[in-house]
């Protein structure tokens, strides 16, 4: 912190000097904190921040109102009396089709999908990334290029062949099938992430281990893994949010009784029969968004690093 504040003061000092050089002395300098420039700057940022925060606020406020109040008032007004009933209803009673046990079913389905998918996809991708970084063989870069190009192909193009493949091995519609699908489509970005990270580690370490007689797996488990905890965390953040938020694969590759939370949420909110209970809908939406939001707020800078690493090619 000290470093940054000194940097700021030197920058401010530099400003002052350069202003004087440009226009000569003009009496007392105004206080910097309330200069028109700063008002503009923070004003604009503040307005944007409001736009971004507004939906979250609306969600929370609506989910804490009773239905009569929702019908009366406007969506921005805070609740007159706070009730947690919509939350209870969304979690345990909301109906999709014949099931009336609420979003909790979707939540546990999503957890059951999430845990193995994250573990398997990261395991497979990290080993591939390690092989690509340290054990190049003929054609390895070629396969990797196809993998990266594959990241840009719309999923719709590959959906049906994957359905056929899963049906052939008898896992279409099951949890195992969905785990395989998440592993497949997580491969490009994760492999890229791990390959770039492993390639940035000093190669001498790898060579020394080779000379000491360590093999492929020994180097991976004894040297690479312990050194790459941060990148595993980044990959986990990427996968947890990505898989939790997935809708398309859930709806294509699972049956209604194992639908993940996002699919169930959409079915609850957009169901045509019955009276629309907006407060329950918003509580359900918040519940579904809660997991990635918690991951986001806890991970902070690592999340940014994850999406930057994922988004910008290495």
């Amino acid at each position, binding site marked *: 912190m000290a470093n940054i504040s000194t940097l*700021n003061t030197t920058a401010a000092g530099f400003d002052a000097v*350069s202003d004087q050089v440009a226009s000569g002395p003009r009496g007392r300098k105004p206080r910097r904190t309330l200069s028109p420039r700063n008002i503009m*700057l923070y004003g604009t*940022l503040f307005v*944007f*921040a409001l736009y*971004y925060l*507004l*939906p979250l606020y*609306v969600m929370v406020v*609506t989910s804490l109102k009773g239905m009569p109040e929702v019908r009366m008032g*406007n*969506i*921005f007004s805070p609740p007159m009396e706070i009730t947690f009933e919509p939350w209870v209803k969304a979690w345990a009673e909301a109906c999709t089709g014949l099931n009336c046990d609420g979003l909790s079913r979707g939540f546990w389905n999503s957890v059951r999908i999430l845990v193995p998918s994250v573990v398997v996809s990261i395991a*497979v991708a990290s080993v*591939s990334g390690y*092989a*690509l970084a340290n054990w190049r*063989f003929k054609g390895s870069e070629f*396969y*990797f*290029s196809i*993998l990266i*190009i*594959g990241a*840009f*192909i*719309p*999923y*719709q*193009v*590959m*959906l*049906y*062949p994957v359905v056929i493949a899963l049906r052939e091995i008898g896992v279409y519609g099951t949890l195992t099938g969905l785990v395989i699908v998440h*592993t*497949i489509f997580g*491969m490009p970005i994760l492999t890229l992430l791990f390959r770039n990270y492993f390639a940035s580690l000093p190669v001498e370490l790898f060579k020394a281990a080779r000379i000491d007689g360590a*093999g*492929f797996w020994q180097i991976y488990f004894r040297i690479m893994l312990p050194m790459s905890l941060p990148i595993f965390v980044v990959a986990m953040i990427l996968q947890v949010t990505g898989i*939790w*938020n997935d*809708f*398309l694969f859930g709806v294509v590759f699972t049956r209604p009784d194992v639908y993940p939370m996002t699919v169930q949420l*959409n079915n609850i*909110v957009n169901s045509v029969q019955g009276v629309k209970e*907006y407060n329950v809908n*918003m509580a359900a*939406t918040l519940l*579904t*968004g809660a997991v*990635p*939001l918690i*991951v*986001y*707020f806890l991970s902070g800078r690592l999340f*940014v690093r994850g999406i*930057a690493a994922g*988004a*910008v090619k290495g």
Partner: protein
Amino acid sequence: MTGHAPAKRPNQLFRNLTAKIASIPMILIALGIFLGGSLWTVVYSFTNSKLLPRASFVGFDQFERLWSSSRWIISIQNLAIYGILSLIFSMVIGFLLAALMDQKIRFENTFRTIFLYPFALSFIVTGLVWQWILNPEFGIQGIVRSLGWESFSFDPLYNADIVIYGILIAGLWQGTGLVMCLMLAGLRGIDEDIWKAARVDGIPMWRTYLFIVIPMMRPVFITTLVIIASGIVKVYDLVVAQTSGGPGNASEVPAKYVYDYMFQAQNLGQGFAASTMMLLTVAIIIIPWAYLEFGGKKRG
């Protein structure tokens, strides 16, 4: 790599054998799913498959039917409007926010957290929230009317002419934070000395941005463009959650067309043809970029 200790030159095939075995999943996915799967879909888009894929080829019939379907034409128009506006707005807003954030401001982390959090949410959540905010009875329209402006009308989700803009508002809310982050990383990558030089020369800040910094950030802009564009082609969940394609079919998009024909209408041929067109769209975006990016150097 394992101890074969051969007298003659080791067989090339067995060099790094463990690494090769460990790479089998990657090779299978790359060749079998990404390459093979895409080719399979393209090939079968020339067949008249209905409920099950059948290899009876009918030439370009499916594509003719596709392009004479009004629903597909609407999907393409929507994608074009959504895509172009979304590119322009997310680039402009994203850059503007990044430039503001780069002014050595206080609370930078707080602002960044606020701008980026929608990106952590799914399109389903995004779509449902904005469906509620744009609800004509209780949402923005209702509030403005209750303030006294009785004739005010803003109900994008129930008006076929402007429904796509309602989706655009939600899409921008979700995605601009990412653009801001990428742009901010690009801005931070610019040498501080360039700013100092520009200031010494008395160049106003906006001109420095426009004529020095933005041209220097060309790679960042191109990468961002490719990321946003390839995301736009895939847009699906947002529409499903926010409007389910309605009113009527005014907010249909190609990805939804593909899903509906493949898994609901049991008309696989149409689904394959539509997805092949999507692949073509992406290829038109990606190939020039890949050529620019990797053409000179031998990489990728």
